[in-house]
C-alpha cells in the first residue's frame, strides 16, 4: 500500500509541472507563425488578432512570417514545434486545400494540429476590368459562356484565394476560361486595372478600395449577405448562383499534443480578441467581420477544416492542377 502511495505521488509529481504549466499559461512570449509574407492580408489579420490576444493573455504574441510553398512551409514548422502552447499557427483556407493541392505534405492537416478556433471569413468578390462589357452577374455569365475562348481569368498563383475562387466559379457556370496566373495579387490587380486581363475573383481585402473607387467593375460578393462597405454589390445568390458561397476562413492552430486546457485558454482569449473594438473596426475596413463567439472554438474549427477538405478535394482533382 505504502509502495502504491509512493508510486502514485511520484506520478502526481511528474504530472505536476504539466498541470502547473497549463494553469499558469502563458508565462512567456508566444510566437504566432503566419505562413505567408509580412504585409499580406493573412499577416494583417494575424497581427490585429495577436495584438488583442496579447492584452487578454498578459503576454506578448510575436508574429513570425514563415512564408513559402503556399503556406505549407510555415504549417510544417508549427506541426513539428514543441506542443507547449508557445508556438501557434494562424492559417487560412490553404490548410484545407493544401491537403489535396500537395500530394506530399510533411504534415497531415487533420492529425498534426490542435484547434483554437475560427477567426474570420473574408468574403470574395467577382470583378472585371473597368471597360468589360457585362453589367451584372447574369450578363457576365452569359458573356463568359458566349466568349469563353476570348476571356482571360487572372489569379495570384496556384493555391491562392483567387485560384480557388476561379476554380469554383468556372465549375459553377460550367465554363472553362483561359487562366492567367500571376506572382501574387498585386501584379494580377495591376493587369486587371490596365485592361490586360478580363476577370478575377479575389478577397475584399484586395478589392474593396478598387471597387469603391470605380477602378474595376464588380459583379457579386460570395458572402451570404451584402457587405456594409459595398451596399450596392449583390450577393452571388441574388445573382442566381446560390452555391457560390465561399470565403477565405482563417483559423488558429497549435501543434498536436498541446494541453487541452491551454487550447481552451487560447480559444477564450481569441473570443475576447474578436470582440475587441480595434479588431472589429480594422476588420470592417477590410470588409470582413470577426467570427461570432460560438465559432471561436476548437470544435467549430475542426468541423470547418473537415468539411472544407471534403469540399475542395473533388474540385481540385477535377481541375488536375497540383502545386507540387
Amino acid at each position: 500500500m505504502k509502495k502504491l502511495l509512493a508510486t502514485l505521488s511520484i506520478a502526481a509529481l511528474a504530472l505536476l509541472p504539466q498541470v502547473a504549466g497549463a494553469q499558469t499559461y502563458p508565462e512567456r512570449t508566444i510566437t504566432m507563425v503566419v505562413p505567408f509574407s509580412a504585409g499580406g492580408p493573412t499577416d494583417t489579420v494575424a497581427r490585429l488578432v495577436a495584438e488583442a490576444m496579447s492584452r487578454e493573455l498578459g503576454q506578448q504574441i510575436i508574429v513570425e512570417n514563415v512564408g513559402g510553398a503556399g503556406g505549407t512551409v510555415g504549417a510544417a514548422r508549427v506541426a513539428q514545434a514543441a506542443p507547449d502552447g508557445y508556438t501557434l499557427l494562424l492559417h487560412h483556407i490553404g490548410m484545407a486545400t493544401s491537403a489535396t493541392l500537395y500530394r506530399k505534405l510533411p504534415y497531415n492537416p487533420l492529425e498534426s494540429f490542435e484547434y483554437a478556433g475560427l477567426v474570420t471569413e473574408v468574403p470574395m468578390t467577382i470583378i472585371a476590368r473597368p471597360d468589360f462589357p457585362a453589367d451584372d452577374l447574369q450578363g457576365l455569365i452569359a458573356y463568359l459562356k458566349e466568349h469563353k475562348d476570348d476571356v482571360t481569368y487572372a489569379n495570384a498563383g496556384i493555391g491562392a484565394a483567387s485560384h480557388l475562387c476561379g476554380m469554383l466559379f468556372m465549375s459553377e457556370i460550367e465554363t472553362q476560361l483561359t487562366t492567367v496566373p500571376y506572382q501574387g495579387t498585386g501584379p494580377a490587380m495591376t493587369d486587371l486595372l490596365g485592361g490586360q486581363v478580363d476577370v478575377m475573383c479575389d478577397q475584399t481585402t484586395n478589392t474593396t478600395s478598387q471597387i469603391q473607387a470605380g477602378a474595376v467593375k464588380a459583379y457579386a460578393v460570395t458572402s451570404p449577405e451584402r457587405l456594409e462597405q459595398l451596399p450596392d454589390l449583390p450577393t452571388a445568390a441574388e445573382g442566381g448562383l446560390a452555391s457560390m458561397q465561399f470565403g477565405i476562413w482563417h483559423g488558429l492552430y497549435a501543434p498536436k499534443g498541446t494541453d487541452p486546457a491551454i487550447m481552451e485558454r487560447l480559444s477564450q482569449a481569441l473570443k475576447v480578441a474578436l470582440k475587441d473594438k480595434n479588431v472589429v473596426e480594422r476588420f470592417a475596413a477590410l470588409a470582413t467581420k470577426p467570427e461570432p463567439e460560438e465559432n471561436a472554438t476548437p470544435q467549430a474549427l475542426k468541423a470547418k477544416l473537415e468539411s472544407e477538405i471534403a469540399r475542395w478535394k473533388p474540385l481540385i482533382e477535377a481541375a488536375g492542377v497540383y502545386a507540387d
Partner: protein
Amino acid sequence: MDLISNLSLGLSIALQPHNLAFCFVGCLLGTLVGVLPGIGPTATIAMLLPITLGLDPSTSLIMLAGIYYGAQYGGSTTAILINLPGESSSAVTAIDGYQMAKRGRAGIALAAAALGSFFAGTVATVVLALFAPPLAKAALKFGSPEYFSLMVLGLVCAIALAHGSILKATAMIIVGLLFGLVGADLYSGAQRFTFGIPELSDELNFVSVAVGVFGIAEILRNLQNETDRDVMVKKVTGLWPTREDFRRMAGPVVRGTALGSILGVLPGGGAILAAFASYTVEKRISRRPQEFGKGAIEGVAGPESANNAGAQTSFIPMLTLGIPANPVMALMIGAMIIQGIVPGPNVVNQNPELFWGIIASMWAGNLMLVLLNLPLIGLWVRLLTIPYYLLFPAIMAFAAIGIYSINSNPYDLYTLTLFGALGYALVRFGCEPAPLLLGFVLGPMLEEHLRRAMIISRGDPTVFLTRPISAVLLVIAAIVLAVVLMPSVRRKREEVFVEED
C-alpha cells in the same frame, strides 16, 4: 494652384516636430540596416510593424518610408567599402565603388553615392508630387509583352556590363538564368531543381545570392594568401571629391535619376533594374569605358542615383493605385491596413494629409540623410582599418543573421554558403559575378512575362511587334546587339581590354 496648396498641406504635416523626429528615426534606422549586410529594409519594417500600431498613420508611414530610402543610402556604404551590397539595389554600386575604395578613394566614392542619391531623391520627390497619377496610369499600359521586351533589352545590355570577354559574360548570364529557374513553376506548379525541398520552391533569395557572390567570395579571395591580405586599404587619398570628380559625376547623376524615376514607377521593374540600366548607359557613352570595373566614379554616381530615384518613385503605384511595386511596398500596404487605411485609388482624395505628408517628408528625409551621411564618411573609411580577423567574422555573422531574418528560412543560409563558394570559384576563373546576378534577376521575369504574353495572346508571337511600346523596345535591343557585334566596335573593344590585361 492645387499643387502648391497640396504641398503646403504636406509640408505642414511633415514639418510637425514629432513627424520630423520619426522621419529622422526612420532614416537613421534605414542607414544602419542598409549598412549591415543582409539585413534589409524588408526585415526591419516587418519587425517594426507592431510598434507603428501606437502611432498615427502619417507618422508611422513617414517613419517606415524613411527606413526604406535610408537603406538605399546605407546599402551603398558596405558595397563600396567591403564589396558587400547591404541592399539588393546596391549590388551594381559594388562593382566600381569597391575598386575605388581599393585605390584609396573610398571617401570620394561614398561622397559621390550620397550626393548622387540626394540629387536623385530630391528630383524624384518633385516627380512624385507633379506626376504621380498620370505616371501610374502610364505604368498600367505596361502589359506582359512590354515587360518581356524590356527584359530582352536588359539582357542584351547586360553584355555591356562585362569588362572581359563577351563569351564569359554571356556564359555568366546563362548561369544566372538557370539559377533563376529554381522553384515551383508559376503556371503549372511543377517543381524545378528543388530536389523535393519545400523551402526551395519559392526561388533562391536574391540577397543570399548577391551577398554570396560579392561579399563572401571577396572575403575568401582575401584569405587565400597571407601576403595579399590587403582588402582594407590603409592609405586613403582624400575624402572629398575634387572639381574633376564633380565634373565627371554630374552627367551620370542626371541620367541615373531620369532612368531611376521612370523604371521605379513600373510595378516589378524597380530600383535594381534602374541601377543596372544606368551602369550600362554610362559605360556605353563614356569616353573612358576601360575605367569601368576599375574604379570609375561614373559607375558609382549613376547607379546610386538611379536606385535612389527608383526607390522613391516606386511609391507611385502604391500611393495612387494601392499596388505594391516590391516587397517593401507590400509591407507599407500592410502597415496602412493595420492603421485602418485601405490603400487604393482613393487614398489621395480621402487621406490627402497622408499622401502629401509622405511626399513632403521624403524631401526632408533626403536632406537629413545627406547631412547624416557626409560627416559619417570619415568614420566609415576608418572602418577599413579594422583588422581582418575581427572584420571578416563580424561581416559573416551579420550577413547570416540578416539573411535568416528575412524569411526565417535556413535554406537562405545554405544558398549564401553555396554562392560564396561559387563566387570565389568564378573570381579564380576570371568570370564576373555582375552578369550572373542580372541573369538571375531578369531570367524568371523574362520567362514569366513571355509565357503570360503568349497565354493572353493565345499563342500569337506577333504580339511583341504589334504593340507599339514593345516593338520600340525590341528595336532598341536589336540596335544595341548590332552595335556590340559590329566588327569595328568589337575590334576596338578587344583592343581596350587587351591593353588592360
